[in-house]
């Protein structure tokens, strides 16, 4: 211990001979961070996302106007000093709507990115670990969902449940889980017969315990990479649902719905549709850059591409 106190924190983290398990784990994370930081594009993505989160949290202070206040006399104004990104068909400030809209986007992406991998993890590991009929049935179900055109399936769900943000999230999660299930199953198959699983089993661990304590932790890192890479896709699907009028309901400033609003005016008032489109593009690009960087850290061989 006295020896480690003489080292700088950096040296402690990068030590070749970690003395505690915690040091080793923190060291690995730090190593990863160094790799990640060296990737300029990934850092750019991270910065954009931090800004986005900041925007969502501080929306009431950042937005120059209310996102809902209408002004029919001042509708479809081009970008100007007063309205940096112009106004929409009901005279609402587009910049303010974009800023508030970041909350919706983050909510959708966050929730879907939480729900879908968990469903997938559960189904995939159970299938892979149990094998036999359970495996067959679960994988058939996965295949069915995989064979379905994604957007149409989501559409059907939303149409069945009613249009709202909550249902859009649910629909996206329900269409997004199959790839995770396959991934989790593949990972499970490779570790199912590992010696330490057998050892744990000999020690009397039940199947649930084996699954939760020994299988899940090993699947998580590859799932995280996959989630990071899928985030942008989720944003785009959510925007697609919004564009079709099946996501957030008016007057909520959901970006996809804003594009759909602006579509009517595209020839004369291009900014109404262009601005939310740019916002979607920038944010999903940021997620992609981040995902790319994370993959380099967590999965250096690039096997999950």
């Amino acid at each position: 211990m006295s020896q480690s106190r003489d080292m700088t924190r950096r040296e402690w983290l990068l030590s070749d001979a970690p003395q505690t398990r915690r040091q080793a784990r923190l060291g690995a994370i730090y190593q990863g961070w160094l790799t990640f930081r060296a990737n300029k594009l990934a850092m750019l993505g991270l910065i954009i996302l931090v800004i986005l989160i900041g925007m969502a949290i501080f929306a009431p202070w950042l937005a120059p106007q209310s996102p809902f206040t209408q002004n029919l006399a001042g509708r479809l104004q081009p970008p100007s000093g007063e309205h940096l990104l112009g106004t929409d068909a009901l005279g609402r400030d587009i910049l303010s709507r974009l800023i508030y809209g970041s909350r919706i986007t983050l909510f959708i992406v966050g929730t879907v990115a939480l729900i879908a991998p968990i469903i997938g993890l559960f189904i995939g590991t159970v299938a892979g670990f149990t094998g036999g009929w359970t495996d067959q049935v679960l994988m058939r179900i996965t295949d069915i969902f995989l064979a379905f055109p994604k957007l149409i399936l989501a559409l059907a769900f939303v149409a069945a449940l009613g249009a709202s943000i909550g249902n859009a999230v649910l629909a996206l999660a329900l269409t997004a889980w199959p790839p995770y299930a396959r991934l989790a199953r593949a990972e499970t198959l490779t570790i199912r017969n590992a010696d330490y699983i057998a050892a744990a089993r000999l020690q009397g661990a039940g199947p649930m315990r084996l699954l939760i304590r020994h299988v899940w932790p090993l699947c998580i890192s590859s799932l995280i990479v996959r989630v990071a890479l899928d985030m942008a896709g989720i944003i785009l699907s959510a925007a697609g649902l919004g564009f079709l009028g099946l996501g957030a309901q008016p007057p909520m400033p959901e970006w996809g719905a804003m594009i759909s609003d602006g579509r009517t005016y595209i020839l004369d008032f291009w900014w109404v549709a262009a601005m939310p489109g740019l916002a979607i593009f920038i944010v999903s690009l940021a997620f992609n850059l981040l995902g790319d960087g994370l993959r380099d850290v967590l999965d250096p061989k690039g096997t999950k591409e």
Partner: protein
Amino acid sequence: MAHSDSGGRSQSPPLSNADRRAARHRRLRNLSGTVLSLALTLLGLLLVTFIIGRVMPIDPVLKVVGDRATQAQYDAAYRAMGLDQPLYIQFAGYIRDVLSGDFGRSISTGQMVIDDIKRVFPATLELATLGTFIGVFVGVPLGVIAAARRGGLIDQIARVVALVGYSMPIFWLGLMGLLVFYGILGWVGGPGRQSIIYDGMVPSVTGLILVDSLLAGDWPAFKDAFSHIILPASLLGYFSLAYISRMTRSFMLEQLSAEYITTARVKGLSERAVIWRHAFRNIAIPLVTVIALSFGSLLEGSVLTEIIFSWPGLGQYITKSLLAGDMNAVLGGTIVVGTSFIALNLLSDLLYRVLDPRSK
């Protein structure tokens, strides 16, 4: 250059005859298993669609009889559509009809679903095929070069191109593309498959207007159809090239780090030969699968692209029918999508067997 051929073949790891026989046997069994499981998938797909259709709070009867119908007229239509039967009888009846080639009648177009599909599927097929062509002919070389010059300028460009492709909302890009290339510059044709004046002018043989107009020798009609399809096809092509170029790159990187490549280089083969004749040949199999998958996803009908470009294709057909509660049409569309999924899977499996030197 001269000895590259023999060099190429000697690379696959040696297999014993017993190994080969076992592998072939396994693959055959796998193939029949695949067919069976895919058929089950299709059936499950239909069942899910059927159930969704029945729980959806959209009343198909109302679509048929309209807003002003009396209760008696409504009830008559309800019975005529068989909706008073229990769900499992409806489903069984539907499957029986489908097996005898009857897909039922669409309530939103008033026509037989099979005729509707004959009309809309070629539109999607044409778009998806051209899109995939663009994706392959740009994406594959881009991926190969990016891998060959890893970290170089082209690699960086390819990376950015792909990332931008993954990040772009396609419906937005389509809108902006229409605005710029059709609205402002006038370089391409507008929404739809043809200019209105050409509607119904070219006899329909395959349903693919590009092909039909060439068959009829109608050059202006071909040019017109081409000017309409090129923008949406390029958009879809861009998205598939983003995917294909990334996959090509990573397959190539894997090959290029293999030992046999080092051997080939040591033998003094030109870099070009190493890349194209050796490494590229070995990625052909997984690449075919990737291309088939990407083609499949375009075939499912790119709903949003079709909506933006008023493209009368399968995706739009299914979406519209779904929102009208027109389940015969949705089920018919699902069968087509499911069957293409199966066909493409089988095809890539087959190609795998043909191309994989180990299975010969």
